[in-house]
């Protein structure tokens, strides 16, 4: 058995030999290639450094739950500079299904946690200089999805912004954390203090059983609605909880002090409905939910409108709104809000069984030479029970029901444009 590296479309994720398997369900962008880790000495591996410090020169960083992952038998991979569990012994497929049916516990401590605070300035107003979201209109105790944009109207990152009363709390992607923080500092300091929290872990409890499980530790989480945030005591620690996630299921994201993370994780895993879930299933869950992965489905060139993320642009920030424009790339965004983008991110459902992975080139007929688009995320959807993908196609080809063709291993295979998500969300609105 040999890894496929015979075409560009597959080369990115494929370098697969059974002897030294990648073991990673997460597609890798350029410069994001991971390294293999063999835990020949579990005792050594178990020396976790809370706060994400690395124990070896240039080695990947470790989250406060690293030792627990190793103890649970996780297969670890380097993801965005962090040594993360890609799967547990249960395997990607069962982990995915378990999350949809019961509850999965994810370690997302590699993500960046940032607090924005100011004595004099209006922090929300200041942040609106960098994002097209309506931050000023975000009420205390609420969270909102936002995009950091650039002057060309592309996306620098996607993030969550929570109004926690006297400050804004941001969660950004691990791979973009450094760039985001530089961007926030350049755009907001000195009037706003940008504080990166190095000593907090981030856990996600996702799935239909998440509410019942977490309510055993803090009954008040039952009353939270989708995108509510609250400070809650969990297992004796101050937790910043939001009712949100990256799976399309109901659930919570939980920021806790690093030293409290393992105790809380063990307590949650003690519940018979909860299983630990790796990055592999995280990727297939978010793909079925139609959610973007930065660096793949959205990047510095794709615009919010093209990406189908116009909903993340507040009414107040649109042309004619109270605080219209005023963020990087507002010209392009405003224009596209009106006339649409040249291309559009769509759901792509291969009609056959073969998965169409990231990089598969899309054509509008079976034989033509001119590509019309490209798959940006794709694989097997365990809940769908077949292949699922997302990608960009010209606006004229973006209508659900349109048949396009993806070229897999030199063969054109039909793929249908479908509305996202593939799996309807289980949010508690």
């Amino acid at each position: 058995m040999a890894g496929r590296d015979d075409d560009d479309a597959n080369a990115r994720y494929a370098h697969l030999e059974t002897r030294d398997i990648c073991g990673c369900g997460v597609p890798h962008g350029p410069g994001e290639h991971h390294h293999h880790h063999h835990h020949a000495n579990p005792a050594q591996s178990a020396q976790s450094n809370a706060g994400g410090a690395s124990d070896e020169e240039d080695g990947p960083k470790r989250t406060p739950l690293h030792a627990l992952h190793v103890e649970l038998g996780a297969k670890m991979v380097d993801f965005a500079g962090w040594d993360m569990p890609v799967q547990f012994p249960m395997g990607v497929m069962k982990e995915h299904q378990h999350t949809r049916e019961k509850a999965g516990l994810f370690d997302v401590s590699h993500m960046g946690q940032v607090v924005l605070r100011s004595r004099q300035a209006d922090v929300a107003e200041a942040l609106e200089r960098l994002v097209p979201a309506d931050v000023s209109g975000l009420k205390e105790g609420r969270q909102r999805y936002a995009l950091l944009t650039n002057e060309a109207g592309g996306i620098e990152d996607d993030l969550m912004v929570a109004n926690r009363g006297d400050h804004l709390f941001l969660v950004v992607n691990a791979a973009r954390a450094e760039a985001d923080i530089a961007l926030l500092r350049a755009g907001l300091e000195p009037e706003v203090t940008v504080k990166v929290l190095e000593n907090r872990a981030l856990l996600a409890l996702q799935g239909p059983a998440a509410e019942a499980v977490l309510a055993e530790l803090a009954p008040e989480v039952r009353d939270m609605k989708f995108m509510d945030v609250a400070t809650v005591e969990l297992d004796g620690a101050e937790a910043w909880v939001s009712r949100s996630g990256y799976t399309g299921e109901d659930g919570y994201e939980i920021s806790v002090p690093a030293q409290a993370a393992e105790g809380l994780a063990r307590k949650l895993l003690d519940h018979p409905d909860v299983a630990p879930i790796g990055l592999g299933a995280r990727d297939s869950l978010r793909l079925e939910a139609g959610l973007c992965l930065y660096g793949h489905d959205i990047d510095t060139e794709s615009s919010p409108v093209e990406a189908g993320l116009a909903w993340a642009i507040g009414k107040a920030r649109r042309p004619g709104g109270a605080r219209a424009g005023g963020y990087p790339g507002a010209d392009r965004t405003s224009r596209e809000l009106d006339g649409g983008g040249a291309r559009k991110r769509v759901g792509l459902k291969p009609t056959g069984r073969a998965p169409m992975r990231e990089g598969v080139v899309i054509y509008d007929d079976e034989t033509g030479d001119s590509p019309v688009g490209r798959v940006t995320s794709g694989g097997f959807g365990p809940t769908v029970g077949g292949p699922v993908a997302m990608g960009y196609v010209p606006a004229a080809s973006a209508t659900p029901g349109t048949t396009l063709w993806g070229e897999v291993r030199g063969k054109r295979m039909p793929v249908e444009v479908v509305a996202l998500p593939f799996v309807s969300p289980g949010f508690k609105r």
Partner: protein
Amino acid sequence: MKYTEEHEWLRPEEDNIVTVGITAHAAEQLGDVVFVELPDVGKTVSKDDEVVVIESVKAASDILAPVDGEIVEVNEAIVEEPGKVNDDPEGDAWFFKIQVEDLSALDELMDDAAYKDFIG
């Protein structure tokens, strides 16, 4: 049973026919298999030709022809239910049967003990 370094097993049957599949070790390493593409029956293949595509939740990989020969039968059941490859890789989930000129082509392959050694 004989084994290749590509983690295939080969079981000689009657009439110079050899059944080919992947080892339990390979199936375990691949993870959940979600797609299998088999060659056409009647196809003549050379050693190291890509004859099967197998995709797991993680990635795609090829299975190479372990010997020269003609594909005489394929296991459609694993196309219908790719998960069988994880359930019974060295039994029901064989991939194809290949007819070879000369069974001595298998002599250079690993036996049970050598393969166990090989995967450590």
